[in-house]
């Protein structure tokens, strides 16, 4: 049996040691995050001031040219082209994902169907599949020579009637970015559906019941109860999806690689291709920085909207 005094002493020592424990516990995470995120970003900033190719990297050469890479980006038609593609891709994807997500979530929440859980699980499958598997699956559908859709169109006059009898889904520069946007809607809608479901669950059922007593129609209930109460969730969903979609390029990389002739090259893919296909690491680092600034601006808007959402719900 230890004496009272020694227990008190041990306790005191323990308390002293405990002061450092919280810092010790977060230290590994902070160290990893800093060394694998902040450090590379600082590194990228210095690289972005250099004229540097893949070859230079191997030889350890490359010279400082100041902000020349940044100026070059603003004069580069391919940069503006990728920005335009990003706006189309993000605009259609986000609109489609949030819209369809709202539609599906509303129906699943409405008690009109049996076993909504099974439908919900099925809808999540495109979202959890890897981008490469997804990419190939769509190549198998749209490819000019082996695609399922072109093959179907030769057999079915109905598809021809709908105008779906083309073979250039992935090779026509005028439509390829829209095709990829549809694929992205297909893949990402599940996330929006889940977010909106959470929003719908936060609305008390009693509101609908009292509206029903007053004789409200389904549409009236949706417009006057669901939409206003769901607005904060929709806003957050819109911004989050925008942030995510802006950085989606793995599926595009698999399906078209940005082609034909840069027609489907979004900004993040342009950065990647500049670095690894062209080997222009200095220029690509500058583009990475621009991409980061674009992303941080969206983040700031996100936080402002979050504030707005809190004010509305408060």
């Amino acid at each position, binding site marked *: 049996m230890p004496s009272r005094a020694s227990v008190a002493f041990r306790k005191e020592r323990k308390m002293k040691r405990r002061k450092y424990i*919280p810092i010790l516990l977060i230290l590994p995470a902070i160290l990893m995050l800093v060394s694998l995120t902040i450090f590379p970003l600082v590194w990228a900033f210095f690289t972005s001031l250099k004229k540097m190719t893949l070859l230079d990297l191997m030889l350890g050469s490359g010279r400082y040219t100041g902000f020349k890479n940044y100026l070059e980006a603003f004069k580069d038609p391919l940069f503006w082209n990728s920005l335009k593609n990003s706006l189309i891709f993000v605009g259609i994807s986000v609109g489609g994902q949030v819209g369809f997500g709202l539609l599906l979530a509303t129906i699943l929440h409405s008690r009109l169907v049996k076993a909504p859980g099974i439908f919900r699980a099925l*809808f999540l499958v*495109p979202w*959890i599949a*890897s981008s490469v*598997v997804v990419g190939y699956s769509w190549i198998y559908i749209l490819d000019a020579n082996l695609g399922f859709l072109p093959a179907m169109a030769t057999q079915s006059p109905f598809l021809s009637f709908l105008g779906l009898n083309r073979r250039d889904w992935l090779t026509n520069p005028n439509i390829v970015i829209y095709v990829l946007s549809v694929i992205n809607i297909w893949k990402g809608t599940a*996330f929006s559906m889940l977010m909106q479901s959470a929003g719908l669950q936060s609305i008390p059922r009693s509101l609908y019941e009292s509206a029903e007593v007053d004789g409200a129609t389904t549409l009236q209930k949706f417009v006057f109860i669901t939409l206003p109460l769901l607005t904060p969730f929709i806003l957050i969903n819109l911004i989050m999806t925008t942030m995510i979609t802006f950085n989606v390029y793995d599926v595009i990389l*698999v399906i078209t690689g940005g082609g034909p002739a840069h027609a489907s090259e979004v900004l993040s893919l342009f950065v990647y291709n500049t670095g690894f296909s062209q080997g222009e*690491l200095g220029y690509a680092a500058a583009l990475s920085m621009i991409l980061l600034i674009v992303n941080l601006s969206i983040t700031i808007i996100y936080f402002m909207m979050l504030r707005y959402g809190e004010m509305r719900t408060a």
Partner: protein
Amino acid sequence: MRKRWSKVFLAYLVLISWAIFCLFPFSSTLLIALKPKDAFMSFPPDYFSLRLTLENFATVLKDPNWLKYYGDTIIVASFASLIAVIIGSLAAYSFARYNFKFKNFFMIFILTFQMIPGSSIIIPLYNMFANFNLLDTYIVLILVDSVGTMPLIIWLMRGYFSTIPKELEEAAFMDGCTSLKAFWKVTFPLAAPGIAASAIYAFVRAFNDYIIARTLAGSRIVTYTVGLTMFTNQYEGIDMTLVAAASFTALLPIIVMFTFFHKYFVIGMTGGALKG
């Protein structure tokens, strides 16, 4: 409550159409995987006859390269998940339990990492690891993958730890446990659902990753996503049936995991915003 049949019909119509849309690409992949090679030699390819074979699956599952890719993927994803969950939980525990200087600063600091997209650091990471001669190693893929999921896991786990009453730990403390032991014996088991969700989230992210594996590795260490693209280069598109079979074998484990851990999946992938 009255349900008019037209409304019910419309609801089912939308849901069933979307379900078909969701599954259509996967079912056509399966169909191609079940076709003999010569079905795709000419246009239009032969989709509609009933000539089916399991040969492609047999070839893929016996292919030592493909099995190696698969093994690499599982090694990377398992360790990345383990590291992200352990280190993430330790930090989350600290945020949930202790008050210390600059705590809020550190929490916001970690949240900002969530906002830094992979696409803007992949080139710097490549430069950095090329400089240190660390490209194409397990350790690089494991570290980069685990860092990608860590901020979200910290926030998710912090939520879980805050719901566990402090008194339970204090009781263990009184019985002479060290705080680390109290954490392992009392808190960790109680936070099991959160840990499961975090582990699945980290595993799936690393398992499905393509960009990191392609950029920072790809010749000695090959994950299955990169391996799939190598099939095509190897056979120049003629053996698309093989790629389809391989894709399908790669999709299956995720679907199986998803079926069993559906709830944890949703919690993890949405960062705990939704509880399944």
